[in-house]
């Protein structure tokens, strides 16, 4: 039944979930026909997307995501500033939701993906199931980081009075791109990089260039 030796030669198709024989390169799913690239392609693409997201995280948190115009002038809110403002208003639950969705989840995704990528190069033998769970977790909760952007969209769409106006801030663009790249990084990450049978192979940089698929 569920034996390790069998599952190390089989992979689940990321598109249709069918079980396929893992021949390394050029796996074509027997059910949906999707081309499943070698994990080394996923490795380098995940790094690229993750680093882009981490760079964008800086302006996304430094610049205001929201600007509130009132008759007294205007106030800028950064992501963290918005959480603090909600907390001061007494909306503790909502403040916590925003804190988790916009601050904790992106950082958690960075840490987990960094850990998984580094781990695929410098393997530790134990806790493979924990790593799988961590990956599933960030895949499921990742999209909730978009909450802040949608709140800004709703607020700036509703509050357009002459004396009271809310508009998006410069950080919003960086934030939306940051979330896009973290989501893409988690989608591109190949769970086979977690599995045991890839850890014993040579690091990918020592492979010849001819091993690469083109495109």
């Amino acid at each position, binding site marked *: 039944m569920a034996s390790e030796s069998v599952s190390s030669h089989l992979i689940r198709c990321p598109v249709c979930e069918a079980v396929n024989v893992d021949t390394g390169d050029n796996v074509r799913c027997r059910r949906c026909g999707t081309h499943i690239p070698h994990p080394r392609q996923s490795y380098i693409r995940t790094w690229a997307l993750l680093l882009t997201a981490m760079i964008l995280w800086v302006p996304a948190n430094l610049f205001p995501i929201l600007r509130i115009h009132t008759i007294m002038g205007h106030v800028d809110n950064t992501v963290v500033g918005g959480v603090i403002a909600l907390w001061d208003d007494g909306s503790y639950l909502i403040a916590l939701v925003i804190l988790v969705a916009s601050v904790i989840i992106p950082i958690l995704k960075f840490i987990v993906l960094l850990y998984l990528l580094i781990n695929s190069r410098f393997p530790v033998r134990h806790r493979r199931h924990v790593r799988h769970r961590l990956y599933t977790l960030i895949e499921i909760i990742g999209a909730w980081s978009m909450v802040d952007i949608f709140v800004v969209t709703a607020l*700036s769409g509703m509050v357009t*009075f002459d004396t009271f106006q809310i508009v998006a801030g410069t950080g919003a663009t960086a934030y939306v791109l940051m979330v896009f790249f973290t989501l893409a990084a988690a989608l591109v990450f190949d769970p086979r990089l977690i599995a045991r049978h890839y850890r014993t192979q040579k690091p990918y940089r020592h492979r010849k260039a001819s091993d690469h698929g083109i495109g």
Partner: protein
Amino acid sequence: MMHKKAHDDLSKYVMCDRCNSLYRKVQLPAGKRARCKKCGAILYRYDPAYLDRALALALSGIIFFVLANLFPLIRVGLWGKEHTLTLFSAISVLEGGGFYIVAIGVTLLVLVIPLLVIVDYAVLILLLKLGKRPEMARRLLVSLSHLIPWSMVDIFTVSVLIALVKLSGKVTIHFGVAFWALVIYAGIDLYLTRARRIGTLWEIYERRYHGQ
């Protein structure tokens, strides 16, 4: 290309999407589901009425989605003046303020991709029920699994509520008919795309067109 024997053997197996444990499938009684022994995730289920239910839900989903976009979601008032929020107005405000990337992102995540998902789903279920056009059904299934991670209507609905909490006490708030349509649509979307896995549809596809 693999020959028929190996193909049949592999389709008897299922791999847990949370922890990658491998299991051999068994015939379940109607309405039951199989769970992973290691992590408790649902592996597969046998739900003979799924196609009928999914078709009804997908068609009503399209109707509610159109309603949610035609009418105002929220009406806010301040000192006798009123403004309404529709999805289109919110996006055009962003676009008017020069936030083109944010506007494009919101349009795709809340408008375009959810619409594609629900129409794709409805057409797919129709094809599966009729048992016609296997190649088109396969393409619809593949695009569905690429689209689903980028459909965020559920998150948008929660965000509108959070925005209202932020405004509470500062303006008067009335819920529009479109808001309730959006909530119902989000519920249907959650059931069809998150509570039921794409693998379920692929299994129906295999039974329909390959007679397994």
